[in-house]
């Protein structure tokens, strides 16, 4: 017994030293801290995700993620500079070190994960290619689209997915191709085609903002592609990687535990849930393990709210229901590993 207790004491001593030791920061994280600014690559203008508002202030779901990350690392959500990147520019800009992180509705795929010298921190938003039809046409599923004309932007993965899926299911259709978004929309709303297809998030925005009367149009529940969008980092800095992941997870965990920007102080003071206490820094050394302040998650939640609040602020105005992005407890697939 004695032997065992010595071993236990030794083990706990080791555990103590390990936990007391701040995480060794990697090169990229050091650079961010030295610069006292996070440089974040964002979309040049996509409503709901990354767009400059009338005052020129960056807003959107992807943008808020960067602000939250800056808040976690540097303790100030304004210490972030946004670099608008076009879709062709984004990977070279990340690879060349022009940006620290890419939060630009980028789909996580095997090729991108394996061949770009970069890695995805997780999924911030689950998107997928969907379909919008006129309510009066009574199209309820893909099978009803036999013989329909489909408006689609040419040269996109959307066009390729459409061809693949319809060929696989033996559905006959007539693609109507356009170069630019405005052209597709004009054509669809003027009735030149029966179906309009693109990412579900974009469909929702189009229905809300462009449709003469949104109630005349229906977005089908079928999605024909998986588009998990998430922040992307250069490889080689595991500490920065861990922080970027856990900024995602903190927002999810907070929602799961019912911590919101409004009740966060109350939760920190009164919650008896050990997970909430660990998350908000009331107990444990979770922040120190990541190399951050212990109140990192508390700061994020009190400033931006939990995942659901961010979603509601940015994505809900697009007219997009939570769907896959609901928590796993609510029928979605957003799931955070345990905070312990």
């Amino acid at each position, binding site marked *: 017994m004695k032997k065992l207790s010595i071993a236990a004491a030794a083990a706990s001593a080791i555990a103590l030293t390990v936990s007391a030791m701040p995480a060794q920061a990697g090169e990229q994280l050091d650079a961010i801290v030295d610069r006292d600014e996070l440089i974040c690559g964002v979309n040049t203008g996509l409503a709901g995700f990354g*767009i400059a508002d009338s005052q*020129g202030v960056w807003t959107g779901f992807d943008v808020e993620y960067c602000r939250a990350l800056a808040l976690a690392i540097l303790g100030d959500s304004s210490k972030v500079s946004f*670099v608008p990147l076009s879709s062709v520019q984004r990977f070279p800009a990340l690879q*060349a070190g022009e940006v620290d992180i890419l939060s630009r509705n980028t789909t996580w795929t095997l090729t991108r994960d394996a061949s770009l010298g970069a890695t995805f921190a997780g999924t911030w938003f689950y998107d997928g290619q969907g379909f919008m039809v006129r309510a009066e046409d009574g199209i309820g599923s893909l099978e009803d689209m036999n013989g329909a004309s489909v408006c689609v932007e040419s040269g996109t993965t959307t066009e390729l997915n459409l061809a693949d899926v319809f060929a696989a299911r033996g559905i006959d259709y007539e693609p109507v191709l356009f170069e630019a978004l405005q052209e597709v929309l004009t054509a669809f709303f003027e009735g030149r085609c029966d179906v309009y297809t693109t990412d579900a998030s974009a469909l929702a925005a189009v229905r809300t*903002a462009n449709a003469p009367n949104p109630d005349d149009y229906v977005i089908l529940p079928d999605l024909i592609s998986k588009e998990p969008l998430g922040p992307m980092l250069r490889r080689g800095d595991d500490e920065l990687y861990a922080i970027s992941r856990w900024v995602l997870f903190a927002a999810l965990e907070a929602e799961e535990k019912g911590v919101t920007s409004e009740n966060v102080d109350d939760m920190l003071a009164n919650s008896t849930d050990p997970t909430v206490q660990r998350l908000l820094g009331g107990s444990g050394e979770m922040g120190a393990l990541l190399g951050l302040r212990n109140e990192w998650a508390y700061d994020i939640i009190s400033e931006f709210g939990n995942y659901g609040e961010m979603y509601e602020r940015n994505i809900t105005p697009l007219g997009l229901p939570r769907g896959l992005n609901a928590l796993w407890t609510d029928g979605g697939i957003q799931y955070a590993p345990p905070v312990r």
Partner: protein
Amino acid sequence: MADITNTGANFVPTEARPAPLAVRPGPLTWLKENLFNTWYNALITLIVIWALANWIPALFDWFVTSALWEAAPADACREVAGACWAFVYEKWRFILFGTYPFEQQWRPGAAVILFIGLVVVSCFKPMWNKSLLVIWPVGLVVCWILLSGGILGLDYVPNNLWGGLPITLMLAVIGCLLAFPVSIALALGRRSNMPIIKAFCVGYIELIRGVPLITVLFMASVMFPLFMPEGLTIDKLLRAQVAIIMFAAAYLAEVVRGGLQAIPKGQYEAADSMGLSYWQSMVFIILPQALKITIPPQVNTFIGMFKDTSLVLIVGIFDLMFTMRVAINDLEWRAYYIEGMVFVAILYFLFCYSMSKYSQWLEGELHRGHKRL
């Protein structure tokens, strides 16, 4: 002399034609002669009149009568049938100045006014002297301080926040100004007898002309950083500016070369016989003539470059065109993209049309010597 005999066929002059009418023909005659002189012209005239009668009132109605002319929330625009100029009220500062910090936007505003002032002042003949060599550097430095700040109590604004009109003007005007001397050097080099210089200039011009501007911009902003050691980055805006200078220089060089070839050989020989050196003969004899006769194609290239700067959107720089596109992506205002495009089209037209008018005036001014009347 006996050959000259009177054959009886005396020269009888035909009756003189009546003098041309001193008065201008009346409007009816003018119509008849110009618009209705043949049946097909009459038909075309009628079709055009019918089309205009249909479109002009509708356009006027959309632009003016049924339009919403005041600042209002986007919802108010759903009620009106015409243009929603509330969009422009809401977004004009973003379109003109992009993501520049909102409360500091007087700075790019002042810089644009100063910059346009610089260009306008340099257009007048009394200013064509050494004073320009002082005015321009001073003016550009003041513009730079206004935009960038960091001294004189102005907050520092990094150039990834700059956008809109200052970017378009800067890329176009500085691009063309700096491309101009490079293009002259390239044109002279291409006509040089020195094989290495000639080969370099031909290679450069043909390479740049052989690829689209979009490729040059790509190389400058996407590929170039990958060749640099990690951590060392050259400013994105500067890279785009250099790409535009390189591109404009190649096109202008061919314009200038056209001018050089149009100068008669006698001019070159005359300069040589005066004992002028190569540079003297170029600077004093050949180039003044060559540049003068190539004003129309030069301005053509300038106007083209002014509009081509909008391609920097593919490298994520917010020029005037791109800020408008972001503005019309705003969920609330998305339905009013036509208003945004009209607004930007008017701005572009103002700049391009002034350039074109100025070039016409300049041609007349410089061609005084041998103007054909």
